[in-house]
Each structure stands twice: as C-alpha cells, then as structure tokens.
C-alpha cells in the first residue's frame, strides 16, 4: 500500500502540475500564451510604477473591511456587489501643469484596459481612486468639481492632438481635513462603456477645488499642493452573476422568503374558520 500510495502521490503531483491556472475555471478564457509570462503577482509588486503597490495596499485594506482573516465574507458589506476590480492606467499623460494657487489639478489623460471584466459581471458603481504621494492635511474642508472627458477609446498613439470626445461629465465632491485616499464617482460615465463591453476606456480628468466657505468661514486661506496627487486608479464595483460567485442578496432573499413562508403558514392556521372559508371561497371564485 506504501508503493501504491507513493505512486498515487506522484500521479497527483503530475496531475496538479498539468492543471491549468485553477482559477481559469472561474475566469474568462483568453487566448494569450502564458508560457513566457511573468507571474502576475511579481508583475504587480515589482513593475516599478509607484501606483501599483499603493493599489495593492488599498485593495488589501478593502479586503480586510469585507472579509474575516479566514476569508469569510462579512455581512456588513453591501449585498449587491460580490466583485471589486481595481485597474491602474496603462498609460497616463499630463497635459499641462496645474495652478497651485487655485487648487486646480493638472488635467491628465488616462487609458484603462478593461479586458478582464467578463460579460457576467454587471457594473453597479465606479470611481476614480486618488491618493496623495505624501499625507496632506487641508486647511479646511474643500469642495471640488471634477471634469471628466471620455475620449475615442481606440486611440492609436499618445499624440497630443485631442481625440474626438465622446462624453463629458462633471461631478462634485468634498475633501475633509485628513485624507489619504478619496474616490470620485464616475458611475454615470462608465456604465454605458462597461455595459457595451468596451475593451479599453480613454479619458481625461481634471478638477478644481475651492475652500468650503460655509464650513470654516474663519479658516485662513492658503493654497494646498494638489500636485501631490498620484494619477488615479479605476475601481469597478460589480455583481458577478455566474454560478460560482457568491450571491448574498440571493441568500438574504432566500432567508426572507422562508421566514415569510413560515409567517404565512402560521397566519393561515391562526386565522378563524370564517376567514379561511372565505379564503377558500375566494380562491375557488378566483379559479372560476
């Protein structure tokens, strides 16, 4: 039995070696050859772009907020999305320096590759995730207006001439005093693109911030250095509708239905005969 067990173990080793990436069962097949391919974890950690480890740190924080140490999803998360994807721009291009005095942020051109979003994942919410290269404290709360231009996605090269813009969006948000990360909601802009399975999104973003007079009328004015902002990542909050994904609202719905069913049963047996006969009468009338 030792020998056969050894053989069995060797066979299992060989078998597991030959298995394709196990998550390929859960991920859309893509025809790309993976042989000369850096392990993605290595790529993400060491590809030298300041943004990536920052992105990984953010996603680890999100993971800790959504799941326990053993990986059990916490119940405090919104039951709607079971997938969150973070994309760093595969190319960014700052057009002109911003104006520090007014707190305007230099417009930046971004290109996000959304190849990894399979058709079964439906977009619920999306945001541009900004962080400061150094921790920054604002003299007081500031109101910002973000101006977003979605451009022709199939943009051949990074020549400065402006591609025809598809859509422009404005969105307002407020920065409180101590901020390490902040998210600018771009759901309205992204929803049609993700729904039409666009492979890449090309956008240019800039925003200006002004001090929120109502909040701190006395706080002294002062330019704040928004150029400390690191080019943003793109966050997509999705609902994966495939069978392998966990559907919390499904289990919530199931629980609610089974408790309702229990109530109804209790209700029927509790209601007086008279009502039950009308109940019966009504259903037979209904049938008629």
């Amino acid at each position, binding site marked *: 039995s030792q020998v056969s067990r050894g053989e069995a173990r060797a066979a299992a080793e060989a078998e597991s070696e030959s298995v394709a990436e196990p*998550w390929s069962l859960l991920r859309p097949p893509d025809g790309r050859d993976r042989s000369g391919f850096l392990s*993605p*974890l290595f*790529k*993400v950690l060491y590809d030298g772009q300041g943004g990536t480890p920052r992105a*990984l740190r953010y996603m*680890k924080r999100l993971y800790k907020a959504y799941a326990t140490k053993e990986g059990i999803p916490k119940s405090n998360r919104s039951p709607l999305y079971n997938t969150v994807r*973070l994309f760093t721009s595969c190319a960014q291009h700052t057009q002109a320096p911003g104006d520090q005095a007014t707190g305007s942020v230099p417009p930046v051109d971004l290109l996000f590759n959304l190849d990894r979003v399979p058709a079964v994942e439906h977009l619920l919410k999306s945001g541009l995730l900004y962080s400061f290269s150094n921790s920054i404290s604002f003299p007081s709360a500031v109101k910002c207006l973000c101006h977003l231009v979605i451009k022709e996605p199939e943009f051949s090269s990074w020549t400065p001439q402006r591609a025809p813009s598809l859509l422009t969006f404005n969105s307002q948000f407020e920065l409180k005093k101590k901020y390490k990360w902040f998210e600018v909601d771009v759901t309205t802009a992204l929803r049609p693109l993700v729904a039409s399975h666009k492979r890449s999104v090309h956008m240019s973003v800039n925003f200006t911030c002004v001090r929120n007079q109502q909040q701190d009328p006395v706080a002294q004015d002062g330019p704040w250095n928004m150029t400390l902002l690191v080019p943003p990542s793109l966050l997509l909050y999705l609902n994966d509708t495939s*069978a392998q994904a966990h559907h919390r609202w499904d289990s919530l719905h199931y629980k609610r239905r089974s408790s309702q069913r229990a109530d109804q049963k209790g209700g029927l047996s509790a209601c007086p005969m008279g009502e039950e006969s009308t109940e019966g009468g009504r259903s037979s009338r209904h049938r008629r």
Partner: protein
Amino acid sequence: GQDTVSLELNKPLAPASFNLSEYLKHFLFPQHECELHDFRLSFSQLKWDNWIVAPHRYNPRYCKGDCPRAVGHRYGSPVHTMVQNIIHEKLNSSVPRPSCVPAKYSPLSVLTIEPDGSIAYKEYEDMIATKCTCR
C-alpha cells in the same frame, strides 16, 4: 423456543466487567461517526499562490466518519438513507453503505492578481464545508 428464552433469562444481564458509563459514552458519542474536520492549508500547496494575495490560510474543512444506522435524527437524512443501510446489511452488501458528505457550504472571499496586473476582490460560492450529512 421456551428453553432458549429461559436460558437467555438465566444469563447474567451484563459481564461483570461491564462499564455503563463507557457503554453510554460509546453509544451517545460514537468515536468515528460522520462529522466535520478541519484541514488548514496555504494556497501555495494548491499551487494557486501566484494568483491569490489573500487570505493567507484556507480551511476548506471536510466530512469523514461512519454513518450510523439511525441517521434520521442527527443528520437530517432522508428515509432513503435508512433503506440503503438495510439493503447493504441485509440484502446485498455490494450496495455501498451511505456516505458521509458535506450538506452545506459557505463562500470564500479572495484577493487575486489578474494576468494584466489589475487586482480583483471576489467572493466564490461553496468554498468551505460547514455541515455534514449521510447520503
């Protein structure tokens, strides 16, 4: 069979060394009955570590043990399980005894690095066994 009955009656109820508490313990808490067991592993043992960043440890748990003959009350098994037991014991032993298998699962949240370098938080269904049954 009156003589056999009287013989039986004359026999001592239980051997002198009989230990009631041992008997009760064995009957109430059988040693190897079907139940849930832990199996903690790291994703590198599954060769999934080059995709998965979190969690660091994964405990899928598993069901192991003998299915008792009176399975109804403890495992929520259908009557079919009892019938299968009787077939195995009385009629045809090539029909297998009922098996100890998971009845319920819980999901698992993972943080993965995609081939294009993007990072994904995903929740997968049925990744951890939480209850066993005999079927």
